Each structure stands twice: as structure tokens, then as C-alpha cells.
């Protein structure tokens, strides 16, 4: 494209995508709504808004699809019957095509060569679906009014004639404006053609009228000065012979077209005024609020160098500043909260499509859509949640016939709930399907060499279900193209844990299964212990650190000897070297080393580092690929001095250390 993109292209794209997302979810719902209900108005509005903006920005492909879709929607609403599945399918396809076109406009998608034909075929199908439905009652011509205009016979009659410009897009409306002006100036006895008859008649038209008025010819001609798109205006006194043929006046053309939603809008119905803020702007605000906090932390550090008499006041001021900054940070975090429903909105569509392909009937129930989570959590949760839902529809829920055979209702139930519990949000995905097959999971775990048969034998029924989270363990030999996609439950687990969350699975044979995701409300401030290893700095979450200490592991055994444990608070704990875990060179001189002592899931272990640097408060950000695949990393953050920092995941580190130990043991 040689032209520069439209200045407000990004605003258009954001709005259009929002409309289209809601459109898709409302289309899925419309099949269960009473016919002709208010949801149709909302559906119409989404398409209509996209069409209007697309026309202005100059995206004809979008306008074309939206226009035919809008026509079909108008007719479907008017017929006051439940739409057929085929019609809804067609509108969903139109929605997809619009999404595709909008993404193209954003440069996010390249057009395949056959796209024009595909789009043309869709428009064709939408048009013929519309034509198959009865025409809407025409808005005009309006019924003739019983009362004919009567004019004072002593008033002069004026012949009025004018042309509508060829470029006029709405000649009926334009003629109506003229008609209204003439009526204000006297009694309009005739007008030919009537505005209603001019609707959709583009390309210019000549209109004549007869007006009984006390006004002069010039005054009447002057009425046209304020009316655009009107040309060749002629006004002259009518010959006396032209007896007034009292032509009926059209009352307002009552339109039977799509009714505008009822004006129910009272002030209190409107929630607080909102403004649209780009998500990125909020991210930046959050970063800066965090930086202010870091700055304050540094100031506090510097204040220690002050003479004691000056330090006290300085520190209390800093404390106050710190509280304000924390408050500010909290408010920005709140502004980033996004409702759970933003994740579930597109699910009904995905489930509907998938269930139909599999020949299943699935009912989705969402509870707690209003529960809010941090935007980062919501974003990171999208894929795992979709995976769990697809998995449930594909593998968990049985076909209608299978269900009826075991005495269940033919329609499978899938329930998604979100609820807040203190500083956590619990998300549950449960189905009333066949449940997981514990014996099969155990067998596969052994076959794949993930666990020994002795270990597996020790597992309880519920523990066996958790085997499903092991990498590569899927109850079906081959992943289907529907829910497989090369992503397993292990990836879901990893994604949830990367957010600092936990995932669990309960299942009962024949009754169904339930995944429980325990998520942090927000990716909150973490208090970090900064450590240095191999010349690099890392952060360890203070919440997991129970002590720091110094210890010389070689002291007891001389050159080359390294103990594998050390005594902390009277307890012997395993010791690992962070440098070795990450394959980094240790730059610390031989002799006593600093250790961070951590506790994870009731297990205490010590981690040796080159140097303990200090403490800092930081906002954790989730890892981006490919770092998100590295075990032992929890996230990233940016330090007060602007340097990025990797934050370590103690649980992951412990697992890493354990498996390294096993390898050594095996060798």
C-alpha cells in the first residue's frame, strides 16, 4: 500500500475487533433467545458500527460483507421466528470474514490469493439468504392522510421546482428536508414525487411543488439557501387557472425497518463514565509507578549515609512518599483489572463449532464472569483455558448416544466458574463427561518410562489423575486436530505455574472431571533478594527465603570435597549451587560462600551464590518465549536502574536440582 495508513486505523481496529467478538458471542446466544428479541438490535449495531467506520476509512471489502450481513440481520429480526442454524452459521462466517479483513487492514494477516473469490462467494450466499426471506415492509410511500391540506383561497399560489444533485446519497431524505421547509412557509398543496418515492433513487431527480403562501417569491427561493444538494431552484407565481388540486400530504414516513432499541436509557443505567485507554499505556504507567517505588528504595538506601540527626526526618518523609507510591501502584494495578468474561466471551462459539463437528451437544455455563483479574493474568490464561475447554468437549464429554446409553441427558454440560478467594482467583473447568481413565494414565506413565511401576502402584486414585499433567502423557495415542495441536496438559500446567498459580484435577469415572486453577489476582509486587552468580544478577522471591547464611562446604573435606548439605537452624538441608544448576561459572573465590535458604512445599534447601547483593521491590512480568520454557525461571522485572533482571522460581529450581541429582545418581 503506497498510502500512509489512516491516522485512526488503530482505533478502528480495536473497536472493530471488540464489536466482532461480541457479535460472534451474541450470534451463538441468539439461537436460544426468544425471536425478535432485543439481542437482534445489539447484533445489528455491531455490524452497523463496523460498516460505518470501515466506509469512512476506505475499506470496501469490509463494507460489502457488513452491508449484506446487516440486511440479513434486519430481515431475521423482522420475521419474529427463531433463525435456522444455517442462517446463524452464515452470519458467523461473515463475522469470521470481517475479523479476517480487519486483521488484514492492521497488517497482521496476509491475504491469500483466493480471498477475493471467497469473500465474493460469501457475499453471494448472504445475499441469497436475504432474498429467500420476505421483503421488509417498505418504509415509504406512507399511507395518504385522510385530511387534505386546505389553503386560504385568497393566498397566492407559487410553483416551486428544484433538482436534487446527482451526488445526493439519500434523495428521499433530502426531499423531506425541502418539504419540511416549504410546509413551514405556507400550505404545501402538491409535491411530486413525494419524498418516500424518492428513496434510493440516486442520480438526480426533478421535484415540483405547489405552495400556498403569503411569502414573496424571493423569500421562498431564499429558503433553499440553507439546503445542500439542491440545484436549479425555480419559484414563480402559479397561473390562476392552476386550481389547487389538494394533493395529499404524506405524513412522516413511518419506518418499519429495523427498530432502534427502545430508549430505556436513564441516567442511572449508565455506569460510571469510562474512557478507552490503550493497554500499552497502562503497562507503561505500571512500569513507571514501579520505577518510582524503586527510586524511593534507592533514596532510602542513600539516606543511611546521612548524619543521624538529619536521617530521622528524611526517613519519615521517604516513608510517606513510599506509601503514596504504593497506593499509586495499587491503583494502576486496579485499572488493569479485566473481567473473567473477556476470556469466556469467545468460548461459546468455539464450543459450538467443535461440538457440531464431533456430533455432540454441549451446553456451556459460565459463572463469575464479573470476577476481575490482572490483564497479564487474563492474557496468559487465554490459551490454557481454551485448551482445557476443547479437551473437555473433545475427550471428556461423550456423544449424545453414549450419554443416553448410560442414563445421562443427551446434552453434555461444561461449566466454567471463577470466584475470588482473598488474594486468589479460583477458576474451575468442569464437565459431566466420562472422566479420566486412571488405569490408562498409570499404564502410560510406566510405558513412557516416566515413573516406575512401584511408584505408580503407590499412587492413589486421585493422584493418578494428576499424571495427566506429565509431559507427553495424553490418554489418547494420537492427538486429534481439534484439541491436540501439539499442546498437552503439561503446557497448561506450565502456563498456570508461570503465573505463580497452581492447577489440580479431580475426576470420577462416568461422572466427569474438574480442573481447578488457583491464580494470583494480579502479577503483584514481589520483594526480591538480589543475588549474583557468574557475573549475572538474579532475583529470588523473598516469600520463599527463610534465611541467608555463609558456609564453607569444602571445609570439612579439604581440596575438591563438597558437602551436599549444611546445617541451618539446627536442621540439615540439601545444598545446591545456583551456578551449577544453570551451567554458569562461579566467580567466587574458594572458601565460605553465601547461601540463600529457601522453602518450597515444605521442603527446605540452600542455594549457594557468589554474592548477596541486596533487596528490591519489583513488579513481576511473565516470561516471553523462549524464556518461558526455561525451568527455574519465574519472570522478569526491570530494576530501578533500568536493567532487566531474571526472577527465579524456587519450585522450578528445586525440581531442576532434584533431576540433576537423579542423573548424577544414575551415572
Amino acid at each position: 500500500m503506497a498510502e500512509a495508513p489512516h491516522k485512526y486505523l488503530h482505533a478502528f481496529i480495536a473497536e472493530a475487533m471488540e464489536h466482532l467478538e461480541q457479535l460472534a458471542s451474541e450470534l451463538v446466544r441468539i439461537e436460544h433467545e426468544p425471536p425478535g428479541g432485543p439481542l437482534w438490535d445489539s447484533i445489528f449495531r455491531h455490524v452497523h458500527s463496523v460498516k460505518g467506520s470501515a466506509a469512512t476509512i476506505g475499506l470496501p471489502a469490509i463494507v460489502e460483507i457488513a452491508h449484506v450481513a446487516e440486511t440479513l440481520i434486519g430481515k431475521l429480526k423482522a420475521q419474529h421466528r427463531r433463525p435456522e442454524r444455517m442462517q446463524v452459521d452464515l452470519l458467523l462466517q461473515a463475522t469470521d470474514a470481517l475479523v479476517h479483513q480487519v486483521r488484514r487492514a492492521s497488517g497482521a494477516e496476509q491475504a491469500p490469493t483466493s480471498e477475493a473469490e471467497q469473500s465474493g462467494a460469501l457475499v453471494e450466499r448472504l445475499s441469497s439468504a436475504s432474498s429467500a426471506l420476505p421483503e421488509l415492509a417498505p418504509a415509504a410511500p406512507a399511507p395518504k392522510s385522510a385530511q387534505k391540506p386546505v389553503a386560504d383561497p385568497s393566498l397566492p399560489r407559487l410553483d416551486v421546482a428544484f433538482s436534487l444533485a446527482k451526488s445526493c446519497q439519500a434523495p428521499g431524505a433530502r426531499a423531506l428536508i425541502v418539504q419540511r421547509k416549504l410546509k413551514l412557509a405556507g400550505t404545501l398543496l402538491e409535491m411530486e414525487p413525494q419524498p418516500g418515492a424518492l428513496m434510493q433513487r440516486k442520480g438526480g431527480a426533478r421535484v415540483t411543488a405547489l405552495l400556498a403562501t403569503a411569502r414573496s417569491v424571493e423569500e421562498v427561493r431564499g429558503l433553499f439557501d440553507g439546503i445542500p444538494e439542491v440545484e436549479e431552484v425555480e419559484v414563480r407565481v402559479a397561473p390562476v387557472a392552476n386550481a389547487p388540486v389538494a394533493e395529499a400530504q404524506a405524513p412522516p414516513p413511518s419506518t418499519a425497518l429495523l427498530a432502534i432499541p427502545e430508549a430505556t436509557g436513564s441516567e442511572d443505567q449508565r455506569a460510571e463514565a469510562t474512557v478507552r485507554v490503550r493497554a500499552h499505556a497502562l503497562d507503561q504507567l505500571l512500569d513507571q509507578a514501579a520505577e518510582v517505588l524503586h527510586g524511593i528504595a534507592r533514596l532510602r538506601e542513600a539516606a543511611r549515609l546521612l548524619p543521624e540527626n538529619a536521617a530521622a526526618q528524611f526517613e519519615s518523609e521517604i516513608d510517606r512518599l513510599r506509601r503514596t507510591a504504593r497506593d499509586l501502584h495499587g491503583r494502576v494495578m486496579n485499572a488493569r483489572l479485566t473481567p473473567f468474561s473477556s476470556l469466556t466471551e469467545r468460548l461459546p462459539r468455539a464450543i459450538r463449532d467443535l461440538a457440531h463437528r464431533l456430533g455432540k451437544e454441549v451446553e456451556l455455563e459460565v459463572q463469575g464472569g464479573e470476577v476481575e483479574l490482572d490483564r497479564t493474568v487474563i492474557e496468559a490464561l487465554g490459551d490454557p483455558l481454551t485448551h482445557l475447554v476443547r479437551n473437555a468437549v473433545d475427550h471428556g464429554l461423550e456423544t449424545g448416544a453414549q450419554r443416553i446409553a448410560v442414563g445421562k441427558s443427551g446434552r453434555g454440560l461444561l461449566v466454567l466458574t471463577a470466584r475470588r478467594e482473598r488474594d486468589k482467583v479460583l477458576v474451575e473447568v468442569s464437565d459431566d463427561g466420562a472422566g479420566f481413565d486412571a488405569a490408562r494414565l498409570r499404564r502410560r506413565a510406566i510405558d513412557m518410562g516416566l515413573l516406575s511401576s512401584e511408584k505408580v502402584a503407590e499412587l492413589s486414585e486421585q493422584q493418578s489423575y494428576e499424571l495427566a499433567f506429565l509431559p507427553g502423557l495424553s490418554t489418547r495415542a494420537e492427538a486429534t486436530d481439534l484439541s491436540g495441536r501439539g499442546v498437552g496438559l503439561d503446557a497448561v500446567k506450565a502456563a498456570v505455574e508461570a503465573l505463580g498459580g497452581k492447577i489440580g484435577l479431580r475426576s470420577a469415572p462416568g461422572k466427569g472431571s474438574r480442573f481447578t486453577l488457583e491464580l494470583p489476582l494480579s502479577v503483584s509486587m514481589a520483594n526480591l533478594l538480589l543475588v549474583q552468580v557468574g557475573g549475572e544478577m538474579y532475583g529470588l522471591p523473598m516469600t520463599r527465603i527463610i534465611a541467608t547464611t555463609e558456609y564453607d562446604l569444602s571445609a570439612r573435606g579439604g581440596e575438591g570435597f563438597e558437602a551436599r548439605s549444611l546445617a541451618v537452624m539446627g536442621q540439615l538441608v540439601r545444598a545446591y549451587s545456583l551456578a551449577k544448576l544453570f551451567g554458569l561459572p562461579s566467580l567466587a573465590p574458594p572458601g565460605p560462600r553465601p547461601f540463600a535458604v529457601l522453602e518450597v512445599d515444605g521442603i527446605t534447601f540452600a542455594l549457594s551464590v557468589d554474592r548477596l547483593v541486596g533487596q528490591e521491590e519489583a513488579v513481576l512480568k511473565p516470561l516471553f518465549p523462549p524464556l518461558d520454557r526455561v525451568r527455574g525461571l519465574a519472570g522478569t522485572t526491570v530494576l530501578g536502574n533500568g536493567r532487566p533482571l531474571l526472577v527465579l522460581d524456587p519450585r522450578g529450581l528445586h525440581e531442576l536440582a532434584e533431576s540433576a541429582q537423579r542423573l548424577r545418581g544414575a551415572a
Partner: protein
Amino acid sequence: MPQRRVLIVDDALFMRNTLRDIFTTAGFAVAGEADDGVQAVNLFRELKPDLVTMDIVMPYKSGIDATREIVQQDPGAVVIMCSALGQESLVMEAIEAGATDFIVKPFRGEDVLAVVKKVLGE
């Protein structure tokens, strides 16, 4: 002549931005922006603009109902409907409700200004 003040009503941010640019470039002052009919009526009462551009299909209250209420408040109000192609019957309904004139999307800046200047008698 004092600067003309305009109230822009449209539920699409994109359209509001586009109209705002058109008006400010032409020397108008944008007195306010509303994204639904309810807000439009309230802001009209509050701001008393010289001119309103009014979208038709909007949430809570349509542009037609908003126009009717605005014209009831102030019979001299200048309300220009911004309609999309294929909405002629709605535009006619809006005119019956008291709208002064209309423009049809897609529009160029000069189209909007030509209509506005004409109806304001400039």
C-alpha cells in the same frame, strides 16, 4: 464571528476522532463528545453547542430519540445526522424528529463542512 462550537455524538471512537479532526482543522471548537444518546442529550443541555453531529445507531438511546429530545429542549438546535449508506428511512425518521440535515458515511472532510456551512448560513 465567534468560533462555532460543535458536539460530536458517535459510539465509535474512530468516527469521533475523524470528525474532531475535520472540525478543528476548519476552525471549529469541539465543545464535547458523546458516545451514546443519553450522554448526547445531557451534554447538549450542559454545553449548548452551535451544532451537533449525531450518529443514528447507538446504545442506550438512538440518535433519533436523542435528536427529538434535543429539539424539544431547543427548537433552534442544529443537529446533523451522520448516517451510513442504506439508512435512508432512518434518516427520514430523524428529520421528522427534528434533525436539521444529514451526511452519509463514508464522507470526506469537505463534504461535512459543505453541509455544515450551508445549514449554518455561512
